[in-house]
């Protein structure tokens, strides 16, 4: 019958189950389905309402008073010792430790070369041997050979420094994908720098085109 849905909503929303609005009373006289629905709802609500109501125990106030005085007397930083806070603290410490480990083991770095690209020897992760190359000897400044671009081999020449080269051991040429500038020791060396970025602390960033990039932090 038309309007039954609306009537059933009214039955459900009635303030008291046995006090139905006039519209509903008028409708259910003619509609047996809605009458059955109304009777079911009345019985159900009476059943649920008729359940025994429990009361607070006799000592409710006394226990509440004791708990309240405990709350008033506790330190303002009581939550620092709560199990929830300790769990949160332990979880945070664990996450930080994992981040530190991941940082130092290189999991978070994205210096991986493109697939299929041969990896230059100097672009690998620093090893004690490779670090030696970057740290100048305290000996007097070695002779510096100026290498102009015309003297250089083709750009795809990614090879070790020839044995007869006058390049000292403490230097890395631009051809090898890295440049180190040292205070007072670079003189008028001609180097190619495809990309230079300067930050708060002077930073030289060398990217050899399609080659594996490496950054060299230094001051000059």
């Amino acid at each position: 019958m038309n309007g039954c849905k609306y009537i059933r909503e009214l039955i459900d929303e009635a303030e008291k189950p046995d006090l139905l609005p006039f519209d509903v009373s008028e409708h259910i006289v003619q509609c047996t389905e809605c009458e059955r629905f109304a009777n079911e709802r009345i019985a159900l609500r009476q059943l649920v309402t008729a359940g025994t109501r429990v009361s607070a125990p006799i000592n409710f106030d006394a226990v509440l008073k004791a708990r309240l005085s405990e709350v008033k007397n506790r330190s303002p930083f009581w939550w620092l010792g709560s199990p929830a806070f300790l769990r949160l603290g332990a979880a945070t410490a664990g996450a930080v430790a994992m981040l530190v480990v991941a940082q130092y083991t290189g999991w978070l770095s994205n210096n991986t070369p493109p697939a299929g690209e041969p990896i230059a020897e100097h672009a690998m992760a620093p090893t004690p041997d490779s670090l030696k190359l970057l740290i100048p000897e305290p000996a007097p400044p070695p002779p510096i050979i100026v290498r102009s671009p015309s003297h250089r081999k083709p750009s795809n020449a990614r090879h070790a420094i020839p044995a007869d080269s006058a390049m000292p051991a403490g230097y890395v040429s631009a051809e090898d994908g890295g440049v180190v500038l040292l205070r007072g020791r670079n003189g008028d060396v001609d180097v190619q720098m495809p990309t230079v970025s300067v930050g708060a602390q002077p930073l030289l960033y060398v990217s050899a085109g399609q080659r594996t990039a490496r950054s060299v932090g230094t001051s000059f």
Partner: protein
Amino acid sequence: MSAVTHQAQAIELGGSRAVETASDHELLAAIRDGDEVAFQEIVRRYRNPITNFVYRMLDDYDRSVELAQETFIRVYTSASRYQANYSFSTYIYRIATNLAISELRRRKRRKTVSLFSPFTNDEGDAIEIDPPDLNLLQDETLIQNERRRAVARAITSLPQKYRAAIVLRDVEGLSYDQIAQTLRLSEGTVKSRINRARNLLKEKLTAYI
């Protein structure tokens, strides 16, 4: 604005008669000023309804009493932040509802198994397995007790979002508007949940209707 109004209404509530006739908002204003008698009056007014409400939500009397006390402790400690935008009953029922729902979630995480509802559906809600008792009951009291237990079990087997709404409506007698404010839902959602809860209860309690 309301806070200022009720601050002004924080009349001297020293006399027991004044306390008994004071409104909830006046009592809250007095509690803010440190009046212990006003707090005792609030506890006296609401301890039974709150205990009963939490009991209907949890079906665990001892825990219900603890949570009812926790509700009053929160009322006391947050009295300075109370804003009388809604009726106090809405406010205190909201605290009790949140505590009860937190308790239900904690129990769900611990995967406590009720002897009456050891199985759960896909949503993790308890499915009541209540095989019919074919023995004849001799005593009317036993029948009434059994009916009460069946109703309590049926209510506690409802999903918690339906349970809070139906208990507030049919057990505590709150209006749809108050329930909507307590549960922070729209009135339409509350009506829908209550309708759904009644349909579920009807299926579970067919034998008693």
